[in-house]
């Protein structure tokens, strides 16, 4: 029997059809996909005993507690710490995946000067020259940490200036600084005792402040109840995740927050719903209704609802002074469940957003968000662990990344209680990497190094004998035998927590209703949503593909 070409084709068709009914295609697909995960150049932890170390997230100023699983000296996993008094075991998606940042392809490892490869020596020479030629500005993203003291000292010695870039949560507290004289860094929200929150677009359930703090309060006091103990009234143009889960939501026109705050204040004063007497807003109720998109009756109902279950606090998503004035009227400033003073030592700093005239050079610390662009023609020295596409940097200098640098964690911006923690260096930084503090220490060797500043701060805590040390167990500082023991505990993951301050010490003087204009810098990047410079693969899955946190474009839609 002769085998024809047709026979071969028919046989091939039969074999192909038969193959579909075997495990070959599906098994090969599965195995090849696994094979691609195990290519030689993909880092794999070795099989060694797992070591769990206590530390803190340093990717934003909130400093959530972390348990880092280490294998052979490398972090392979991160989890929250339940004993942390503020974050209470929760982490944001970026924090959960932060250990992967060490291998991120956009990790900076070499000095870049205007796009070309350069060296640390050249950067030092250029910066030292700039220091001799004119004033230098140091920009810090986490004011209050040990390196900040070094930056301030350097700027003062060089007759330069120390500026800070604050996140939106900290920016929202700046109007109270103007009216009370107390630095915004010394203020916080007493969320543990509040019963009604009026959020003007603040993403409270979507990563606002210390991510775990409010979500935990929400879970304990609000979820599943038609009339919860903690009421959240979300005022926002779009149906954000926070708005969708809030107890009540008011949809307003985009940009109508100022008018609505004024309208609510007018109703509170006219109907004498609050004890405080304050300046009457210039807008009539009808004007407020027109600008905010709510009816006058809806504004009246909202005002009555807000005062229905005190203590009440209004939270803004930016530095809107009308919303801050509403808080003054509601009696939410300097009272339990409102805006309280947490510290007597915090200082006020110049914001980095303002013009930088007659400046020779600007040094930007790696703690500053990648989308901050200084408005200056000065020479910019920018430290960054990852190249997130930062522009306007003459010098791009590789800084230590996650867990690669010893740093301390001062109180989170929104917290009502002072805390202090130390994030030890758990991983050795790659060669050719320097922090801004190390860089300045080489320019001026007389500066006190970060580890000594941290030790001095521990000594101050020990001498004060106040507060408690929170680890697996809570220990009063007065019971700790030595400063060395205190520092040792802090370095392995314990958190010092101060005594709650008496809320009565904060008073705001408001002689007239604030005018609408807020900060003068038009779409100022640092006032927008905080965004990570780069995303590790796991966070990208959790955080970007699932859009757990809204992007500004959707929020403004």
């Amino acid at each position, binding site marked *: 029997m002769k085998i024809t070409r047709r026979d071969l084709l*028919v046989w091939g068709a039969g074999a192909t059809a038969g193959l579909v009914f075997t*495990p070959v295609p599906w098994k090969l697909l599965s195995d090849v996909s696994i094979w691609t995960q195990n290519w030689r150049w993909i880092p794999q932890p070795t*099989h060694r005993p797992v070591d769990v170390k206590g530390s803190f997230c340093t990717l934003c100023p909130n400093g959530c507690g972390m348990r880092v699983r280490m294998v052979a000296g490398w972090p392979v996993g991160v989890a929250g710490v339940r004993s942390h008094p503020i974050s209470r075991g929760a982490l944001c998606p970026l924090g959960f995946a932060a250990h992967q940042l060490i291998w991120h392809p956009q990790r900076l490892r070499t000095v870049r000067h205007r796009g070309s490869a350069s060296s640390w020596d050249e950067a030092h020479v250029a910066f030292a020259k700039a220091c001799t030629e004119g004033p230098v500005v140091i920009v810090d993203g986490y004011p209050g940490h040990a390196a900040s003291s070094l930056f301030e000292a350097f700027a003062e010695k060089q007759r330069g200036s120390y500026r800070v870039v604050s996140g939106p949560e900290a920016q929202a507290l700046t109007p109270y600084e103007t009216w009370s004289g107390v630095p915004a860094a010394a203020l916080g929200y007493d969320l543990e005792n509040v019963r009604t929150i009026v959020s003007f677009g603040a993403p409270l359930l979507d990563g606002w402040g210390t991510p775990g703090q409010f979500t935990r309060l929400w879970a304990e006091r609000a979820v599943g109840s038609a009339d919860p103990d903690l009421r959240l009234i979300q005022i926002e143009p779009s149906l954000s995740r926070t708005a969708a889960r809030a107890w009540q939501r008011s949809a307003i026109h985009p940009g109508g927050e100022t008018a609505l705050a004024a309208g609510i204040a007018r109703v509170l004063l006219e109907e004498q719903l609050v004890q405080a007497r304050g300046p009457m807003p210039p807008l009539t109720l009808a004007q407020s209704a027109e600008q905010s998109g709510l009816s006058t009756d809806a504004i009246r109902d909202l005002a009555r609802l807000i005062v229905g279950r005190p203590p009440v606090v209004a939270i803004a998503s930016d530095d809107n002074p009308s919303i801050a004035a509403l808080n003054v009227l509601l009696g939410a400033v300097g009272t339990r469940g409102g805006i309280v003073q947490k510290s007597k030592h915090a200082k006020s700093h110049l914001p980095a957003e303002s013009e930088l005239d007659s400046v020779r050079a600007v040094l930007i610390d790696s703690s500053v968000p990648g989308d901050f662009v200084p408005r200056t023609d000065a020479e910019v020295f920018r430290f960054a662990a990852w190249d997130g596409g930062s522009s306007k940097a003459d010098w791009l200098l590789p800084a230590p990344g996650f867990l690669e640098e010893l740093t301390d964690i001062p109180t989170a911006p929104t917290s009502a209680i002072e805390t202090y923690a130390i994030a030890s260096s758990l991983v050795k930084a790659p060669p050719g990497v320097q922090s801004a503090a190390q860089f300045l220490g080489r320019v001026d060797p007389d500066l006190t190094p970060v580890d000594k500043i941290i030790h001095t701060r521990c000594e101050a805590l020990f001498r004060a004998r106040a507060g408690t040390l929170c680890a697996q167990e809570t220990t009063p500082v007065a019971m700790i035998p030595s400063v060395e023991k205190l520092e040792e505990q802090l370095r392995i993951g314990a958190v010092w927590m101060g005594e709650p301050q008496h809320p009565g010490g904060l008073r705001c003087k408001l002689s007239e209703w604030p005018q609408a204009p807020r900060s003068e810098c038009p779409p100022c990047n640092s006032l927008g949503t905080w965004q990570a410079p780069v995303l590790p693969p796991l966070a990208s899955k959790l955080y970007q593909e699932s859009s757990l946190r809204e992007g500004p474009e959707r929020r403004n839609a």
Partner: protein
Amino acid sequence: MNTTRNTFVFGLGVAIALLAGWVIFPRALYVRQNQPLAFHHKTHAEKSGFTECGQCHALRDDGTFGGIPSSDTCTSCHSERMGASHDEAVLVDNYVKTGQEVPWLVYARQPANVWFSHAIHVQRAGLACAECHSTYGQSDEVRIYEQNRISGYSRDIWGHSISRIRLGRHDGMKMDDCEDCHRRHHVQVGCLGCHQ
């Protein structure tokens, strides 16, 4: 005539593909390897008097799983040769006396991107070891270790049957199997529960 011939040839193609896919492919896919030593669980359990798996495969103080005992553990009985077998000589001379670890081939080793806590499953959930590891701990034979040529994983991860038809709860340790068990026990775990 042509139709009959075509049907026969087509059927022949189907039959050969089925034979290749179900019989030849599974055999070709896995490399069969012997363990470095013939270790008999049953014999050791009887002679040591141990009745619980955890007496050798213990959890550490911090809750992490100790896995396979180190060669130090063997030293307590095998500091000198206890028999005349070849494996006994290899154990004592190559591992116990030199302090090197025996390079056991681990049937249940999970990929590096999976975090599995024995403490949670055994202590908190009360699962028996046999739920995942079958009754291998009571057997007196050394299983052949089968390694997938492409993925490099043990056959125990995929399961004994190439079709993934499971012969028991212990058969297969893929994510589907974990999810199936969690569903049966009404325990919900998000992505980060295992992929931290």
